[in-house]
């Protein structure tokens, strides 16, 4: 109820912007089984881990529809930054050639919001990405993002906790989580690979949590909250 009021309020605040369009769509129903809901796995590439100084260099996402990661709808948008990419180029393998196709952050986020309509956002370690996204959204549209978010890292912690692990020494990086499900090792380290990797990890986690039972979005949100 609260969310619905908030959604309405934000819609007015962000009138005539892509955010307002996004907010016209209902959020996925919390009581639905996860197999009947669409997800959007996303990953950002950043110049720094500090949201105050860092910038978004790349926005990548891929939807999960009917339990399948749909590659034909995958997207990777390079973002023009105020400064030069600098050192992060060597870290993330972003080359100048790719930067030629770069778009404005506004354009990238508009595309991202379009894809997120009616879907649950999937992130590995959501707080970091959400910090960057919300700063950008507030600047552009005056309001932060309202979305149902499942964090695969938190989901993993709660799974490990449920199985008796204390979590303090757990290996929780994306590739480490994937290893526990015998998912393949992805060598490339770009935002889209990570988005796909996150989507696959989520399918494995959900499959193991659910068994052959119903697994509602509500339960998933609680486990990743």
């Amino acid at each position, binding site marked *: 109820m609260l969310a619905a009021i908030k959604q309405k309020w934000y819609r007015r605040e962000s009138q005539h912007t892509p955010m307002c369009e996004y907010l016209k769509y209902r959020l996925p129903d919390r009581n639905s089984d996860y197999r009947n809901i669409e997800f959007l796995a996303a990953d950002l590439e950043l110049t720094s881990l500090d949201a105050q100084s860092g910038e978004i260099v790349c926005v990548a996402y891929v939807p999960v529809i009917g339990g399948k990661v749909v590659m034909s709808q995958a*997207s990777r948008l390079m973002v023009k930054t105020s400064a030069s990419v600098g050192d992060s180029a060597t870290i993330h393998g972003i080359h100048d050639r790719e930067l030629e196709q770069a778009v404005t952050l506004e354009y990238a986020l508009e595309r991202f919001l379009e894809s997120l309509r009616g879907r649950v956002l999937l992130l590995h370690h959501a707080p970091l990405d959400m910090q960057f996204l919300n700063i950008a959204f507030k600047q552009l549209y005056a309001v932060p993002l309202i979305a149902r978010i499942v964090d695969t890292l938190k989901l993993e912690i709660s799974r490990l906790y449920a199985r008796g692990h204390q979590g303090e020494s757990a290996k929780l990086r994306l590739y480490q989580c994937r290893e526990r499900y015998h998912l393949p090792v992805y060598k490339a380290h770009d935002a889209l690979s990570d988005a796909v990797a996150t989507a696959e990890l989520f399918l494995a986690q959900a499959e193991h949590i659910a068994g052959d039972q119903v697994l509602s979005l509500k339960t998933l949100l609680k486990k990743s909250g």
Partner: protein
Amino acid sequence: MTISVEVQEIKDYLAACVPFDQLPENLLAKAAKSIQISYYRKGSQASVLNYQKPQLYIVRTGAFEVRSEEGDLVDRVAEGGYFGYPSLLTGDAISNRVAVIEDGLLYQIDEETFSYLRSHNRPFERFFHQAHAKRLKQAVLTRNQDHQLARRVRDVITPGVVTIDKSANVADAARMMTEQRVSSILVMDQEELIGIITDRDMRSRVLAQGKGSDTPVTAIMTPNPITVSVQDFVFEATMLMTEHNIHYLPVVADSTDRIFGVLSTTDLVKAQKSDPVYLISEISRQEDISGLKEVSRDIPMLLRNLIEADAKADEIGRIITSVSDAFTKQLILQAQEKLGKAPVPFAWLAFGSQGRQDQTAISDQDNALLIDDSAKPEHDQYFSEFADYVCTGLDACGYVFCPGEIMAKTPRWRQSLRVWKDRFQSWINEPDSKALMHTSIFFDMRRVYGEQSLFDRLHKVVCDCAKGNDIFLAYLTQNALKTTPPLGFFKTFVLERDGDHINTLDLKHRGVVPIIDLARVYALSVGMERVNTIERLQALAEDRVITRKDARNLLDAYEFISHQRLLHQGNKLARSEKPDNYLIPDEMSDLVRHQLKDAFEVVNQAQSALRLKFTRGFM
């Protein structure tokens, strides 16, 4: 609007998989972009396959098991393997089930993309066709194992055999039979089988005749017993037993002459209840032509059952021919009942498809009478009436009179051994292309009833005469090359241009017959007495007349084309239409079209080789 991009990881993975490694960059990128990824957990009840939309499934990690509707294991697929392609290739509904053996990720490619890749890349297309063909072969193999009609002697006998040396006496034999609890014993001269003694022999040939226990076994045994091979069909053995009124058949291993066991009527009773055997025993009970005519109505049903049971074309040919043989034999017995025993020895010969044992449906009769040279002119009256009875009877049962009059009731084809020898010698030594065209069926001859030695003497002359006879073989080759497979220059089908069957493929005359002709030329060139096409090809490879590879290719092509022809006839029968040999290409699936072209190509190449080998320097 989304900008579709490929993920390097997926593209790299595909690029390492055969046959994706054959794809050029643009097709590989298209494949990678089309992928859908899903995760399956071991023991999950969720259906892996999408039954509405066939997909190509690529195992990225984990292991999966494909099973048929009946639960038989079809394939086990691990990382880098595929499943789901048969439905994509054939357009048939998905019937298999897939179970998760180990947790894993599946990449899926939709039908549209798969078709695009196939039509734009030949190696990719070929790979999946071959994978499918391999699986089909596997499927046929497993299915035929428990197929009643195709049961072989090996499947029904208990191995192990009790033998006794020829120097032993009756008391030794009786003791041994009692100890080993058997009702028959084989008499051996070292490694060689020379006779058989049964319980009944002990009674009727020893006790009833007041012979002593010191009587040598050789005095009471049935010498040189008829044997069967472990490879023979059970119904063939049954017919031998019925024909000779015997209850035991020594069984030899297929390649060597080593004794493998003894087949008894008891073994057969256990294996019974299969249709052809029933039909044949019905035939043997009929006392007149009208009774046989009644039984002959069941043949189309038998053929349909065999086709539906997916028996091999070779097996169907042998079974259907056995039924024709049974009709012929029963008519001969009826004729003898009516006209009395023949005044001199004779043999009833079958030519063409009945000779080769590859009949697929009731067809025209091609037969003849071979009469001992001791026959006198006045005996023709008997043989004339005799042949008339049998041929008329066959006609009534659906084996209609031969339009070319090649029948025992025609005086020209009811002759003594001497006349037959002369006739074959003149065909072979003074060949005439036109005459040979009508006589090639004579070279596929088999004795159906009567004196084996009479037939052997004729057949030996024919084979000896033909062997290495270059001029005759050149003529025969020329004839064999008159019909070519229906393949155009660009590997397109060449359809019939006129007649009632316009725009169809004639599978018999353009597919099966060229292979039969090829095998005949090669077989006669080395004086081989076999007449069945498959046996000819196998023996030719064995004797290195043709290479093993060529033989295997021809055998596969022969089986495939024959099988398609039978399926087509089965469809016609199911719709109560008259079976024929004319296939409409548009009604074929892509896969069949593709494999049929491959099969025709094999025949094409074999014909070229034949031309080179036998007509060089003559034509």
